[in-house]
């Protein structure tokens, strides 16, 4: 079965649409994850959706609602405990370890087939239903609107938190708001397309974009572009009768683009500096 035959099947179309939406959301959020040094928070939020799901399963038989509420609690805890950048990593580590322990406790009280919790929790890019797609569109709209609203102050407080605070920007509130946005995105997206995919899209494309572009909006644009190439390219590559899961291609492509960005990044930066020098010389 070739690519053409695959593209006629609904699962492949859903996968490409879902992948595109996730790539756009992650591409927008990614640069802030890098600027605020929160890659570990992404990992923590993804892992801890397990605890939230276990709680939801034991209390109400609904792992998904549990995971969503859990992600907001986790974001709040990380935000409060890790307010100082120096303490943030260790605070996430502390919350992660305690949360995973709590998840094991909750699962040991669940009398059913426990793998159901972990299975239901994590989605698969090839198992996206029409309903999932609508949910993703809603999530994308909420995240993009929220990011557009807080973009400028969030950027200011990410680049120079001291100055932002002095100018009266509510940096603490913005930080927690962004964490909640991040945690909800990671949790919800992981349920639809899988954890590994979200992890590799929320961090790698933005890290690569930072090596290539300098202006904040350009970084966001490049980050979205790389996320799109990695996701849709990875999905298309896996639609070729191979038994290799699609996440392997997506993570492989985004890593390859990151390596490429690191290789050509210094040259691009030098050219930018030279152009700036020429411009300044012309002004003088």
């Amino acid at each position, binding site marked *: *079965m*070739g690519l053409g*035959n695959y593209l006629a099947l609904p699962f492949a179309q859903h996968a490409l649409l879902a992948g595109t939406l996730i790539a756009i959301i992650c591409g927008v959020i990614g640069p802030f994850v890098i600027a605020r040094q929160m890659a570990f928070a992404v990992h923590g939020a993804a892992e801890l959706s397990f605890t939230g799901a276990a709680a939801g399963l034991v209390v109400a038989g609904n792992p998904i609602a549990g995971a969503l509420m859990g992600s907001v609690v986790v974001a709040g805890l990380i935000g409060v405990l890790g307010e100082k950048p120096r303490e943030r990593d260790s605070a996430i580590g502390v919350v992660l370890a305690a949360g995973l322990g709590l998840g*094991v406790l909750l699962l040991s009280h669940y*009398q059913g*087939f426990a793998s159901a919790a972990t299975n239901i929790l994590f989605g698969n890019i090839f198992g996206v239903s029409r309903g999932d797609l609508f949910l993703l569109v809603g999530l994308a709209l909420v995240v993009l609107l929220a990011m557009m609203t807080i973009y400028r102050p969030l950027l200011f407080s990410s680049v120079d938190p001291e100055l932002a605070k002095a100018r009266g920007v509510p940096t603490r509130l913005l930080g927690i708001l962004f964490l909640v946005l991040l945690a909800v995105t990671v949790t919800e997206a992981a349920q639809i397309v899988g954890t590994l995919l979200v992890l590799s899209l929320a961090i790698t494309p933005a890290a690569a974009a930072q090596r290539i572009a300098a202006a904040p909006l350009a970084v966001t644009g490049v980050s979205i572009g790389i996320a799109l190439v990695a996701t849709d390219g990875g999905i298309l590559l896996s639609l070729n009768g191979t038994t290799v899961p699609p996440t392997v291609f997506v993570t492989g492509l985004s890593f390859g683009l990151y390596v490429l960005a690191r290789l050509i990044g210094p040259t691009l930066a030098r050219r930018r500096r030279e152009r700036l020098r020429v411009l300044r010389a012309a002004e003088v």
Partner: protein
Amino acid sequence: MASLKGTRINSPVSLIVALGCACLLCACSATPSSAQHEKLSVVAAESPWGAIAQAVGGPYVHVQSMIQNPNSDPHEFTANASNAAAVSTASVVIQNGLGYDAFMAQLLSTGATGPRSVITAAQVLNVSGPGANPHLWYAIERVPKMAHALANAFAQHDPVHAQYFSASATAFDESLAPLIHVIHQIATQKGGAPVGETERIAGYLLQEADLHVVTPIGFALGIESGTSPNASDTVAMNKLLTSHGIDVLLYNQQTVSPTTQAVSNEAAAHHIAIVGVTETVQPIHTPYVAWQGKQINELARALGVHQ
């Protein structure tokens, strides 16, 4: 003109690359056999259900089982593109239910390209509830229900061979008779005997043979969920092994961990018979009756049952 020239295959390297691409394309488009179009396409989440579907459908079905790799843990299965394509184009899809194959529900939710029947074993065998043992294909006396449900589903999609399907479902029932005979022998000769298990895999078989699982359920659940058994369950397990509290230990050969290895070593040290059972059909493509027959005979032999 010069740029046009450049696109021609003019070096051995590009020739090899081009040939390589061509081969890849051929390999991809050649994978489905031409006979597959006439055959009813059937996808089973687990290979035991796939094996039963093959027995019922014979030459008129093409069966694909998703979980069949002996080295992979069925609980950690991830679907790839060909799995997803098979599910969306299949005429009949078989899933187990009870949370065992949640990935199948996800794949089914993406939609189908044509009319598709979905057979759920838990529904056919009328098993439900959060604590239910999901390894339904070990309920030897009840699996004929699945064979007949499959025969009906096949007949809906291929009415021409309806009689063949129902006849082979009946033949499948009859082929189980020797197995059920051994199970009854175990029950009459060793009924009520205490046995142990590292996972609940053969639970339904043990019920049918009237063997009593005395090892703690928490131990088996801990192994199954990957959260590790707690201290009291581990102590209880070890006590049963050292005091010869069980006649036989049923051991999952497919997903071995240091914990289950330690249990089997302890059992061996105290000369307790160990019977290996597998979660899915082993070796791959063995008929259902041959696979289960071998395991049931080993169980009977380990218990010293005369046949």
